[in-house]
């Protein structure tokens, strides 16, 4: 399953809920304001690092670049472009966009 989170971890609890429910082996893609969770020193870093032991975590590079934080990405998070986004969605049986 692919989980997609597009909200800042400071504004909403979408990522927190996603990490609580996502089963091991799932994929997580951070997009839009969700990419702030992929940066070093953010409030969700510890919980995201814990989750990376059981989830594969991706972030959308254009959204990181647009926000000026592409150089601050936590090690182990894989960056994808829009083509990679499509590949992720097509490569999983289902997906959930956490509002």
């Amino acid at each position, binding site marked *: *399953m692919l989980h997609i989170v597009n909200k800042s971890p400071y504004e909403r*609890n979408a990522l927190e*809920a996603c990490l*609580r*429910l996502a*089963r091991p082996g799932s994929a997580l893609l951070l997009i839009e304001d969700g990419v702030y969770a992929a940066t070093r020193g953010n409030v969700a870093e510890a919980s995201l690092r814990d989750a990376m032991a059981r989830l594969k975590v991706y972030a959308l590079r254009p959204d990181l670049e647009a926000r000026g934080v592409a150089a601050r990405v936590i090690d182990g998070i894989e960056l994808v472009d829009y083509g990679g986004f499509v590949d992720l969605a097509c490569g999983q*049986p*289902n997906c*959930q966009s956490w*509002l």
Partner: protein
Amino acid sequence: MSEADQQDEEGGGVVKKFMFVNRKAPYGTIYALEGLEVVLISAAFDQDVSLAFVDDGVYQLVKGQQTKGIEAKNFSPAYRALEGYDIEKLYVEREALEARGLAEEDLLVDVQLMSSAELGELMAAQDVVIGF
């Protein structure tokens, strides 16, 4: 076609497993009401529908909602009517309920309580997951 797809008896249409994930409280935003509308529409298409209530979504099911004072439609009775549309799978995340000081008897409809992990498993087994 996935293994979960089945043919229905009449038209040969595909029945998919739909889960609607409700994570918002009822009146502050339009999400809960819109979600309920979509659930009722989906029932008309004879799909395998379930509802999950997570985070503030559990507030949608609290007994005793009185909306006269805010001049908004009290749509909470509609959850009790879902059974009439053959929507009987209502799942509530136990952790979300407990975190808000609520218990099963505070809810206006029969639900199945599940842990976050159990609900996550169920979510992963759906054909389509739609969040509100």
